[in-house]
């Protein structure tokens, strides 16, 4: 353990115990532990998933970041890498998986499609970015992003974790922003239950 990473500056530690003793804050040690053990969900959507697998495999070796344990179950994962085109048929399942992840949870939108629809944006079955449904922490550009780009995105997630304070993290606040995201409905087209009033208003406006 490298204690320098943990030490809060300004405290003098006697030289004989440096390396064994660290003076730190709760946030610092808690975030240090969390960011070095992010478990991504084993969840691939499209082309980007292949680059995600390459990132985890022989050459790029995700294990260097403590992230090599990809969990197929959302209940055991901290990070959802949305790796590929989000279709309308798939989005109810993605939202359900997101709801099933325990907090604290992070979302990384990998590639052009997950960030905003990408080359397939105009398609009738394509959602224009996963951030229309679930909150995204880091966007990684590219089509597909190279493994280096994904690693950079994952380091951004680590940076974000480092800067968090458990006192004001949203998942430790009572009743704040933790309600499950309602599952979209596959009707004549994709219906987002949060937006039905807006749809109704817009439909009425355009018909008038």
């Amino acid at each position, binding site marked *: 353990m490298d204690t320098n990473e943990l030490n809060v500056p300004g405290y003098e530690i006697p030289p004989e115990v440096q390396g064994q003793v660290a003076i730190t804050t709760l946030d610092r040690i808690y975030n240090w532990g969390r960011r070095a053990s992010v478990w991504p969900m084993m969840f691939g959507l499209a*082309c980007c998933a292949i680059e995600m697998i390459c990132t985890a495999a022989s050459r790029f070796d995700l294990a260097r970041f403590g992230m090599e344990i990809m969990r197929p179950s959302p209940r055991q994962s901290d990070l959802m890498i949305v790796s590929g085109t989000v279709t309308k048929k798939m989005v109810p399942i993605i939202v359900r998986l997101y709801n099933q992840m325990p907090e604290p949870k992070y979302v990384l939108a990998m590639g052009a499609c997950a960030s905003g629809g990408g*080359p397939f944006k105009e*398609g009738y079955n394509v959602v224009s970015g996963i951030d229309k449904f679930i909150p995204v922490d880091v966007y990684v550009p590219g089509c597909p992003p190279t493994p280096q780009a994904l690693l950079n995105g994952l380091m951004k997630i680590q940076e974000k974790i480092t800067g968090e304070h458990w006192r004001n993290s949203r998942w430790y606040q009572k009743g704040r922003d933790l309600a499950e995201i309602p599952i979209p409905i596959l009707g004549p*087209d994709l219906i987002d239950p949060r937006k039905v009033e807006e*749809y*109704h208003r817009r*439909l009425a406006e355009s018909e008038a």
Partner: protein
Amino acid sequence: MTAPAPVETLDLAARFPGWVTPDSRPGYSGWIVEKDKLLDFARALRDDLGYDYLSSVTGVDYLPEGKMEVVYHAYKTTGGPGVNFKVQVERRDPVEVPSLVSIYPGAEFQEREAWDLLGIKFTGHPDLRRILMWEDFAGHPLRKDWREAYFEEEFKPFKSRWPEGKFQMAEDKARLGDNLSFPAGFDPRKKTDFDPEKALYEALRQYQKTESGLETEHLLVNIGPHHPSTHGVFRVAVVLDGETIVNLKPVMGYLHRNHEKIGERNTFLMNMPYTDRLDYLTSMSNNFGYALAVEKLMGITPPERAEYIRVMMAELTRIANHVWAIGFLLNDLGAYFTPMLYAQEERELILDIFEAVSGSRMMCNYFRFGGVARDLPDGVLEKVRDLAFDRLPRKVDELENLLADNEIIRARGIGQGVLTAEDAIRYSTSGPLLRASGIPYDVRRAEPYSIYDRLEFDVACRPNGDIYDRMMIRFDEIRQSLRIIQQTVKQIPAGPIMAVKPAYQVRVPPGEAYGRVEGPKGELGFYIVSTGKSSPWRYHVRAPSFINLTAFGPMCVGQKIADLVAILGSIDIVLGECDR
């Protein structure tokens, strides 16, 4: 080297007078069959004329003529050119065409797709449900009068983006502020009790009863679309009796990203990078198929050097795909990740070559109509030579030594998930799946394209049609691909790499073309109809992953549920291509 099968001239109009007429539209070929006689014609074609392999079924919406057309491409598994026949019907709902599933069971999913996207009802189809979209979806999107929510113009380039580039977000222009469109009179606040699974479960209900008619403890299990062994967002609904599979239905469309609709708005060249994203593991070979189809229409052939580069890249793609497939099959068999990491190492080296020639690891976008985008950079040929003559042969032997005699692989592979030769043909399977069932059918030999008729290689074939054979045939094919690459490295001439001047807009004369290549997953076909405009009128992909799945159900029935993932892994599907 085997000689290609002799070409016979077919005069179907003389053989079936009154039923069949030649398709005389300029640029078209093939035969137009009377709708009422379609079943008799297809039976005669299969039984008397020997066209036992129905490769592709698709529809075309000829809106200006007020017609819908169903296009079939049939081949002989002994090789040779195919026959292309069509049925034309009035474009008036319901558009009905007899189903060919009773004669060619391989048409099952393709007819469902034509129903889903074009609204052509196939009468007599055993299970005509939507396949890519969900059941309640409004409209049939590939019809020419169906418009998506972000519709701007019929054909690209859109005025909004060129030449001033005053780009506006599509969301701001759309009526609902989102990629959504509701049918007239629909109130999103009222009806919310849609059930996309109802039709599927009803289709499976017949298997949940015993012969005496009693409902038993048959269990319905859903695997996917989020599941580590489904190779993407693929879902299977399985009916189980204990642990034995009674029946199953694949559920697809979770990655349906509308290639064909977008492709019909794009200009011809714009579709090239989209083909990369079909089967994203084999982008070079997808480029190949599309380039061939459009070149057929344009009547050009690439120069010699470009042909060699193309074949070299396509075969490297095959190796990269097959090592990946073997690695992931082993994942499915429980050898979690170790064989995959060995396989990945080799794939990364091949990707380095792709990155050097095309600038991108995965989405190469390298082929152009009449050649390739750029010449091989310095040093790449040496790298390919090192790989093909030295490293890969060694590494493939190593991987095979580690796997082939492994007791668990043999126990789980031999005799499991058998697909007989007859079934493999009936279900229109292709690629390693067909060849592992003892049918030596390879488009590179059956109907040679590019320079394959000059190269020496054997069509890999294995007799048993089980999981083990399907794994081993991939080793065989890698070795044959290495032989081909070795020859291309030795023989590649100097010279130009484009037959025509590179252009953003290509002039494609009106007509139809079906270009097919032997992709790593099977026969990849592109059916293109041009009206002489800048965009294709119809752009259809015959995706091997999609059609190979037709045989998935029959292969699994009677097997244990634990073998299902292994069987799926041995087919080797990619969802980008399967759902398109």
